[in-house]
């Protein structure tokens, strides 16, 4: 059995305009772990126990057209061409656990590391408030202790409406990849109240709500500790 008190080395990817970077850093520090920032231009990573893509507006949510310098709003897309994404994908393949929160979730979905799409909220407005979510499916990093637990976590996003086709939905449902769903309010119009999904292998998790902003975030930390130490 692994030592559950082992200090985790956490790499937090910092894109220009990642604005929950310090929140994520403080979150892991609070539980005695050792987080550090990884700048988006990095091409080599030291070994990490967990990689986090934090919330924010990487590159201002913009995608620039090279020729004209004009841009369109499309969260996550501009981050895909960042040098660090090559190493993130490599780490993902070798089974390193990865957590994407909010904008980090958007990036992981755009990168094809997680299924589905995240589009603009049904209201067309940014929305920030508390939500209640239920842990389902594979649970958070496979931690069965958390199944069916209700967690109070806030959301803060304009592009968090989760969409999948019917066949994709059947697939991720059958694989228990949906691990988090809204229960009281659906803040963005997500399909089937989906708030978070994992990849098929179960090492990459993404969600729109912010565990680092909530006392209930401790359950995420515990689940990650258990996963890493297993």
């Amino acid at each position: 059995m692994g030592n559950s008190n082992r200090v985790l080395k956490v790499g937090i990817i910092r894109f220009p305009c990642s604005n929950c970077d310090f929140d994520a850093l403080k979150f892991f520090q609070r539980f005695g772990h050792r987080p550090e920032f990884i700048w988006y231009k990095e091409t080599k990573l030291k070994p990490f126990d967990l990689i986090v893509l934090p919330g924010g507006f990487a590159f201002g949510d913009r995608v620039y057209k090279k020729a004209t310098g004009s841009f369109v709003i499309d969260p996550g897309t501009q981050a895909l061409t960042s040098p660090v994404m090559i190493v993130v994908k490599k780490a993902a393949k070798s089974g390193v656990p990865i957590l994407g929160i909010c904008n980090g979730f958007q990036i992981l979905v755009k990168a094809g590391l997680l299924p589905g799409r995240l589009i603009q909220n049904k209201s067309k407005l940014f929305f920030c408030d508390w939500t209640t979510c239920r842990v389902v499916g594979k649970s958070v990093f496979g931690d069965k202790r958390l199944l069916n637990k209700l967690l109070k976590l806030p959301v803060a996003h304009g592009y968090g409406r989760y969409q999948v086709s019917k066949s994709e939905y059947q697939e991720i449902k059958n694989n228990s990849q949906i691990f988090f769903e809204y229960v009281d309010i659906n803040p963005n119009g997500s399909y089937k109240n989906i708030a978070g999904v994992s990849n098929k292998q179960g090492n990459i998790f993404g969600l729109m709500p912010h565990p680092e902003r909530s006392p209930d975030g401790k359950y995420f930390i515990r689940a990650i500790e258990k996963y890493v130490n297993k």
Partner: protein
Amino acid sequence: MSTSNIPKQLAEAMSSEHTSYTSTKKYLNTLYTKGKYVIQGPGENAGIVDLGKGWALALRMESHNHPSFIKPYHGAATGVGGILRDIFTMGARPIGTLDLLRFGTNAKSKKLFKEVVRGIADYGNCVGVPTVGGDIYFDKTYDKNCLVNVAAFGLIKKKNIIYGNALTPGSDLIYVGGRTGKDGIGGAQMASSNLDFLDERAVQQADPYLEKLLLEACCELAQTNWIEGMQDMGAAGLLCSTTEVALRGRKKTNLNLGSKVYLNRVPTKSPRMSPVELLLSESQERMLIVGKKKFKSKILALFKHWDLEAHVIGNVTDDGKYTIVYDSPKSKNISLEMNFDDIVRDFHTPWPLKDWTVQKSKYIDPSQTLKKNIWQQYDWMVGTRTIKGPNEPGHFAVLDLPEVGKQLIVCWGSDEGRSNLNPAKGIEYAFDKCYRRMKKLKATPLGLTNCLNFGHPEISMGAFVTTIQALSNRARSRKVPIISGNVSLYNASLNHSIKPTPILVMVGVR
């Protein structure tokens, strides 16, 4: 190129009410501004109070009323951008903002209101500074002049505070951030006249992404010993910032400091800009750094890391002059040397102090549903300090300050329509509301900032002076110093002036 009329044009811009508070200065000088917690009072980019344990809080409030009426989305967004820069110019990391809004009751006002909220949300959310509170009221008096006031506060280690000054001849004037364009030329003058003959071109474009990069870079720079000053380019842009750093430095050092600016080195986004346009443009997200010569390459490298464009555009001199130069191309080769007195002149004639004429329109406090719909569009939790945000009632916010083991209490209050009947009673009501809240929460008030929104000085100056006197008396008797603030006059259109609308923000700790 003829340069003979340049000094006059520059002097006119510098003397606008918005830039230099010409007609209000003598009254503002009477305010109660000192106290045991005050590190920096009015006169800098933001006021600063001591939080203890080596930490301090920068605080400032500003209006962006005129731009928000003309171009609500960008006007409101750049209002947020400007106030955030006032905070991080001092080296402080912004940890919260408040938005205090007043709109009319006609159809246009409803549209303005939606766009203003969207502008504030898009800007603040992207930069990642939580909007922890605010208020909103409606009154027909604001039909032709909406009010968009923004307050911001930030944390800084006392030893890292940066002032908007130059100290040493030979230091570099470094320009960083957005390129200079024709947007916002005349913005300062616009804010200092009635809203009758104005056009959209005086309103700047907002770029929160650029602001966020600037914020991070400036906060990193504040932790080094590479620079001796920092000044954001706000009203009257490059001109005001390059003169202000020299003038503040002259006072502090008693040296005959001057500024020399090479206009051909200023990065531009619009073609063929004249010297006056370059100097007066109010393009957003630009900063002036006064860098120590020997750290030039380090400073430029830090900005490069943050993907920011930075150029040395001039130097601090010891000739006591303000000089603009084109040293390339040769055809443009000019050099214009001016005395600071030529640019910073007082064109002001005093206004009469008339009694305020009471208006009859109704002051409306909207429903909780409407308010909820606003604050849910703002990220009020990013930064994970928000203990009491807008989700619970009450005109105050509570933020966690683990750095000093305390909680920050931020209270805001306005006259809520009372100044119209009695200007002194209005400001006293606002002050008492904040002060009583502090006491109720068992907090020690440290200082306050304010935004005094008034109509045309011809008919509002009397109410303004009464307000200032009543505020100063209350502040003195309760020992809550005024550490920064903003005056917005000319909230008027044709013969109509808005009701006097003073707004206060008080900070304290417990």
